[in-house]
């Protein structure tokens, strides 16, 4: 690449050299000078100069200019409020104007203490007010959704939220109504602001107008600690801060990792944390006693029971992993089972493969791609929402988004990225093969992604492989003991089928709803927000999780360590020490501290041969299937044990509807919103039809919970028709 042309800009009598076209706000920053802003936010697209906070004086221009809308030009002489009384006066007047109708209710505002309007008024604003008349009042707070409340009195009309809705999430739901001073932020009629990304507007809002309802009156900024961690709700692994007050998580906010999330979070990652306080949380071990049923037991008693169950299994124990364990926890469990008990067999909810390791890229590379091939029919915003934002960003920058690698765009462009989002990808092996066939290896800006179902499946599989040099044993002929590790496994019907065949079952789960009734011993599980350790995300990036909240009992690592000691297996109860041990085998001896707050994407050439942890076997019984449309039943973003326990997310649960391509809808005489009957092999379910332009012909799509158990090929017909034929 050629060097960008450098220009000299003088800001407050300081000379800086920046690339031509650099925004004035960034140019000033490079000289260590602040140009204050409210509406300016480069992630939202081109600047709009709405708030006028950034006024600066520029030599040769008669009036003050909105600095955020200008770019560096050679010889430009800029004066900010520091050296220009005119600019200082202008900014002061801007703030006085912004505050005309602002309620100044900072003492009871959740934003108070971390509010840009407060901060900039303190630094640049008037110390007193000349407004001695009544301020404009509005009904407040307005719930624009169950998760977000809007206080119109506090709004300064910077349009950050509406620009996010229009130009980032592209949902077009949050808009301004009316004109000028009468403008208000609103959704359409009484519809809630819905979609995967709505919560981001609460972070973008530079005042206390858009706030998360969960955080309302929960904490003051001087009582909280923001603990850096990563989200464990999906395989993206967005970097987050958990805001903690007195050992409890009060909110989750973004912690911009430019290569992963660019500072955006999905609503599941942001709002689902209250599942930690679910009413049916398992807080003590439960033991099934013959004839007496289930009773709570102490931890030492529970470990006694676990010990005898493990001994009785005599090497015939099987572990059903969730793929949400930390690498350390999976390693500890593997060490106990494999070295202590000679039980080598474990299953995961999905297949894991190392087939993509030669095609690793940061997610941000999607945004820079010229062609993005999205394979598979599971919508990205349901499986890995941030990936969907990167694809949208690529499209806005002119990339071609295609659904097949045979598209001419693939061979005619330089930077090609493949994304596999759907069933049948064999853990990434198939998209890896495709990348090889297209010759993407080692080509700048080219690579491939696979969207796994679990947040840390790869890390868990690597850890399981790393703790023993022995060949992985096949599934024992009879299962003496099934250890169900975590809620994803506990909620998996195939794991339940496996449990039917086991002589005894231990379930590690957070919720009674998942663990009750089928386990001989239930051990309380913890959430990703309650553990220390590491996760490997879908890029193959090793990231650090921190214990942000205090769990109701010991963490998995702590009690596994104690249980292992009974079998003379030494496992330290600290993630750092376990990592030190496994890192030599998995991660080239990387130290825990080196994992980093904003982890880089590393390659691990010294990793041992990757041993597969197979997926949990499918039940022998085939689901009903016919001819007609191919039905894709996907796991929606807003589903699963955590989401089910968060009241503020219930309105986001998927509708009972089936998506059809425009072609398939037309040939069947189905219009958007019609009732349709979906059937195969004598099983049928009635749903509402939604015609989706982005769906391929021949494919129908439905959220798993509304699929009625159908899969494969189905007939779709208007409800109340077709019987006579």
């Amino acid at each position: 690449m050629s060097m960008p042309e450098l220009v000299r800009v003088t800001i407050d009598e300081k000379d800086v050299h920046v690339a031509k076209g650099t925004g004035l706000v960034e140019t000033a920053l490079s000289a260590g000078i602040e140009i204050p802003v409210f509406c300016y936010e480069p992630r939202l697209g081109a600047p709009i100069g709405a708030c006028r906070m950034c006024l600066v004086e520029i030599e040769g221009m008669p009036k003050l200019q909105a600095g955020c809308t200008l770019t560096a030009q050679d010889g430009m002489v800029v004066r900010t409020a520091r050296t220009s009384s005119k600019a200082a006066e202008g900014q002061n007047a801007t703030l006085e104007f912004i505050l005309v109708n602002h309620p100044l209710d900072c003492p009871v505002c959740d934003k108070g203490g971390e509010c840009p309007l407060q901060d900039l008024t303190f630094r640049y604003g008037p110390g007193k007010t000349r407004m001695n008349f009544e301020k404009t009042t509005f009904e407040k707070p307005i719930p624009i959704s169950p998760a977000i409340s809007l206080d119109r009195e506090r709004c300064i009309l910077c349009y950050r939220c509406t620009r996010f809705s229009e130009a980032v999430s592209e949902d077009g739901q949050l808009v301004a109504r009316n004109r000028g001073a009468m403008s208000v932020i609103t959704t359409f009629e009484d519809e809630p602001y819905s979609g995967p990304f709505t919560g981001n507007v609460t972070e973008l809002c530079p005042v206390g107008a858009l706030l998360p309802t969960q955080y309302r009156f929960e904490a003051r900024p001087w009582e909280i600690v923001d603990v850096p961690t990563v989200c464990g709700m999906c395989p993206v692994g967005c970097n987050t801060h958990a805001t903690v007050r007195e050992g409890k998580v009060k909110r989750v906010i973004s912690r911009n990792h430019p290569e992963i999330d660019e500072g955006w979070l999905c609503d599941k990652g942001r709002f689902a944390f209250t599942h930690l306080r679910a009413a049916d949380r398992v807080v003590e071990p439960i033991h099934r006693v013959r004839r007496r049923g289930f009773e709570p037991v102490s931890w030492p008693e529970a470990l006694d029971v676990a010990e005898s169950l493990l001994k009785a299994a005599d090497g015939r124990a099987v572990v059903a992993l969730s793929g949400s364990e930390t690498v350390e926890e999976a390693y500890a469990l593997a060490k106990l089972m494999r070295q202590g008990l000679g039980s080598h067999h474990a299953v995961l909810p999905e297949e894991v493969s190392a087939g993509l390791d030669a095609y690793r890229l940061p997610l941000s590379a999607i945004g820079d791609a010229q062609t993005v091939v999205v394979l598979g029919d599971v919508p990205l915003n349901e499986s890995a929402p941030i990936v969907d934002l990167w694809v949208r960003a690529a499209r806005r920058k002119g990339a071609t988004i295609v659904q097949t690698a045979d598209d001419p765009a693939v061979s005619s462009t330089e930077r090609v990225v493949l994304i596999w989002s759907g069933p049948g990808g064999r853990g990434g092996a198939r998209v890896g093969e495709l990348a090889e066939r297209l010759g993407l290896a080692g080509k700048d800006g080219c690579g491939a992604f696979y969207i796994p179902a679990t947040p840390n499946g790869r890390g868990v599989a690597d850890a399981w492989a790393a703790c023993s040099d022995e060949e992985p044993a096949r599934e024992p002929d009879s299962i003496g003991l099934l250890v169900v590790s975590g809620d994803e496994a506990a909620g998996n019907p195939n794991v339940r089928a496996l449990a039917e065949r086991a002589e005894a079952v231990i379930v590690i789960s957070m919720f009674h709803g998942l663990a009750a009734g089928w386990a001989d011993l239930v051990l309380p599980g913890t959430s990703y927000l309650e553990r220390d350790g590491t996760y490997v995300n879908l890029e193959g990036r090793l990231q650090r999780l921190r214990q942000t909240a205090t769990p109701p009992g010991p963490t998995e690592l702590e009690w596994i360590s104690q249980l292992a000691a009974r079998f003379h297996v030494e496992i330290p109860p600290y993630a750092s020490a376990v990592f030190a041990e496994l890192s030599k085998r998995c991660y080239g001896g990387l130290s825990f501290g080196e994992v980093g707050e904003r982890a880089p994407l590393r390659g691990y050439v010294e990793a041992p041969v990757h041993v597969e942890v197979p997926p949990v076997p499918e039940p022998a019984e085939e689901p009903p299937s016919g001819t007609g449309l191919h039905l894709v039943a996907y796991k929606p973003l807003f589903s699963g044990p955590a989401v089910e326990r968060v009241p503020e997310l219930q309105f986001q649960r998927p509708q009972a509807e089936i998506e059809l391509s425009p072609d398939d809808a037309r040939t069947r005489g189905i219009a958007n919103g019609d009732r349709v009957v979906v059937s195969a092999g004598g099983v049928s379910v009635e749903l509402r039809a939604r015609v989706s332009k982005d769906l391929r012909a021949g494919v129908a799509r439905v959220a798993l919970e509304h699929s009625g158990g159908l899969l494969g090929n189905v007939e779709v017909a208007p409800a109340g028709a077709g019987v006579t034929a």
Partner: protein
Amino acid sequence: MSLVTEIQEIAAQYPQSRSAIMPALHLAQKKYGWLPREAFEEVGEALGLTPAYCMSVASFYDMYHLEPVGTHIVEVCTNISCALVGAQATLEAFERELGIRPGETTADGEVTLRTVECYGGCGWGPVVAVDQRYHEPVKPEDVPRLVQDLRNA
């Protein structure tokens, strides 16, 4: 022809279909008399836009009605030029004559009275538009006759 089809025909004349939003909103308003929820849903469907976006655009302009209006609309300009030559007195004359305040509709649903910003007749104020037809200048003493004409129309 359905509203959606009609709008799509207009949209085809623009390089980008969203550019057709203004005529599309006019068509919808012609169909419903004002712009109810369904109007925005239909315009949105026809142009591939969200109803919220269509509502946002409509709310910016005075000529789109987001609330039901009477059979006739009387619009009095109260912007600076008209205000300087007595628009307020003209407006108050309409209020007296019709028995309603600006933004309201007479009980029989016949006449809506509104104030508007500049209609571009600054040399001949106060400007009053009755059902889109300009009358200028309109003094308070002209108001009873205008209202009478309207009632008789």
